[in-house]
């Protein structure tokens, strides 16, 4: 997959933004400034940004709880994220969603709390765009742990049966909460389960290579867009972060974490950018400073935004 210099830098910037957003979240938690626990996607930014890059704004995405990666990828902006995390009226959900972010303008339909509850919802949006003839693609992004949830099964079946424009994107980060995924999953790979439904599948062995992620995903998105039905893509990656802030830890071997830190997707893409002379280290450092400033501004915007009033609790229930 050949990217233009501009594209490479845009993707790099997004990955960086995700990392800085989550680092900031960690800091704010440590200082007691924010109370919402974090589930960070450190080390998985290549997947989150790589899978969302081939999507159009009007495509639908059902995201995960693992940080802000795919939210940034799909086009949500930091200030909208922080405003919601800070529970302010300026949040797109006016503080009602919190972690359960949404930005329907860019196709971010909302993060469910019950893992897997969105498999069938994604089938529904894909069915809807097919019935309405809009050409929109739906992507449902989920983890290895979530892939075992019951609704995966009828959802794959219906998506295949109706040949819906949908991509099932599975981030296999090797952990489901506080245990290795093989403690609860019978097979090493998730993607081949698609075959049972007649759905094509692919494994991206190096999910920390954003270009590989992009290429496999773009193919699946194109297939969907052409009306050729669903695809399941699995991305092998690793959760360097704890499951959540406050996590007791200890169940991920130290060496394993160290090993994977060496495969950091941002570092690797950075090296490639410099190597291919797309930008210099200085350029990237400038970009980093810009990104940090963007994050700081967004946090400030959120912090200065008004709180909802108690009576707002009654709003937004019914249309």
């Amino acid at each position, binding site marked *: 997959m050949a990217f233009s210099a501009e594209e490479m830098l845009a993707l790099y910037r997004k990955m960086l933004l995700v990392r800085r957003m989550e680092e900031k979240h960690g800091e704010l938690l440590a200082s007691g400034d924010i109370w919402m626990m974090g589930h960070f996607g450190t080390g998985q930014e290549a997947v989150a940004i790589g899978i969302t890059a081939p999507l159009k704004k009007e495509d*639908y995405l059902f995201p995960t709880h693992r940080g802000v990666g795919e939210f940034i990828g799909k086009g949500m902006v930091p200030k909208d994220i922080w405003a919601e995390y800070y529970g302010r009226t300026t*949040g*797109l*959900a*006016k*503080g*009602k*969603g919190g972690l*359960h972010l*949404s*930005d*329907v303008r860019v196709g971010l*339909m*909302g993060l*469910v*709390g*019950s893992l897997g*509850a*969105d*498999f*069938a*919802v*994604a*089938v*529904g*949006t*894909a*069915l*809807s*765009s097919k*019935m*309405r003839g809009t050409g929109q693609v*739906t992507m449902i992004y989920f983890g290895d742990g979530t892939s075992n949830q*019951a*609704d995966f*099964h*009828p*959802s794959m*079946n*219906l998506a295949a*049966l109706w040949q819906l424009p949908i991509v099932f994107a599975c981030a296999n980060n090797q952990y489901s909460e506080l245990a290795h995924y093989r403690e609860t999953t019978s097979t090493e790979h998730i993607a081949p389960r698609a075959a049972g439904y007649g759905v094509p599948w692919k494994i991206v062995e190096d999910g920390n290579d954003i270009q590989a992620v992009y290429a496999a995903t773009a193919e699946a998105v194109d297939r969907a867009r052409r009306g050729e039905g669903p695809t399941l893509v699995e991305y092998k990656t690793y959760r360097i972060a704890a499951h959540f802030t406050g996590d007791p830890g200890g169940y991920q071997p130290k060496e394993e974490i160290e090993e994977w830190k060496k495969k950091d997707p941002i570092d690797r893409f950075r090296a490639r950018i410099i190597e291919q002379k797309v930008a210099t280290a200085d350029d990237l450092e400038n970009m980093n400073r810009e990104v940090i400033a963007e994050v700081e501004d967004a946090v400030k915007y959120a912090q200065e935004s008004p709180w909802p009033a108690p009576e707002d609790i009654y*709003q*937004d*229930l*019914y*249309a």
Partner: protein
Amino acid sequence: MTRTITYQQAINETLRQEMEKDKMVFILGEDVRVSPFGQTAGLVEQFGKERVRNTCIAESAIVGTAIGAAMTGMRPVAEIMFADFMYLAMDAIASQAASWRYMTGGQVKLPLVIRTVSGAGWAMGYNHSQSTEASFMHPPGLKIAVPSTPHDAAGLLRTAIRDDNPVLFFEHKFLFPTSGEVPDEEYAIPFGQADVKRQGKHVTVVATLLMVHKALAAADELSQEGIEVEVVDPRTLTPLDKETILASVKKTGRLVTVEESRARNGVGAEIAAMVASEGFDFLDAPIQRVGAPDVPIPYSPPLESTFIPNEDRIIEAVRRVLG
């Protein structure tokens, strides 16, 4: 002008009319093309397989699919074959459909109907006979319609389909063949308006679905002794028309609630609690609840008929409340 149709026809006609009117309305569920109870019969012939869509047997996914379609501009009418199976989709209904708009701060709307069929009495056993409507009153964000007549079925279903929010629509197996008058012209019944199915002055009986008819039969019998029962049919459980119920209790001073399912934490529990709070001063006697005993629905006819509340138990409750 009016005409007489069955409850099943009322549902079938309303679905057809709304599908004719709005091409975003479509039907999905198990066997909705052939339709064992007939509510969706003939629709696939008129509207095609795209809009009358058989799904696999997976109730949670039926509701999930409807949620996704609804939030992106369609107006799905999903069917869950039996009300028992609503529990298979409980998370999708009570935690997702009910909350999605709220958790997005109003960014989406969910014009979605879930129709289902409740009711015991056909010797279908513990898991094809339940009336589960009460279970959906505790979660927020759901509107619940419980029509007892062809007139109410058509009028409430029309409102349900046109509503921009999730609506649960409970039909009763034994009501399908019953008939009643409906206006010739199209009409809709607003949610939250109870219907006084019979005027009375001594006791208020609040009943739903098939129990409305049993309450009316009980009222007829009691009337011969000069006891005039007022039968109030809430028609929707959420929103609940407290005013009509309270006005009736104000008049009669006595309340009996009747439902087919278990009384424990049933529909009557909410109504009784509401009246014990907001209509306490009207009450001249203890509230009586009539419902099923706290057991699963047994198969054997003598047991099943012990399970289902009947006229006699309603009459007894009315007598009790009269002291």
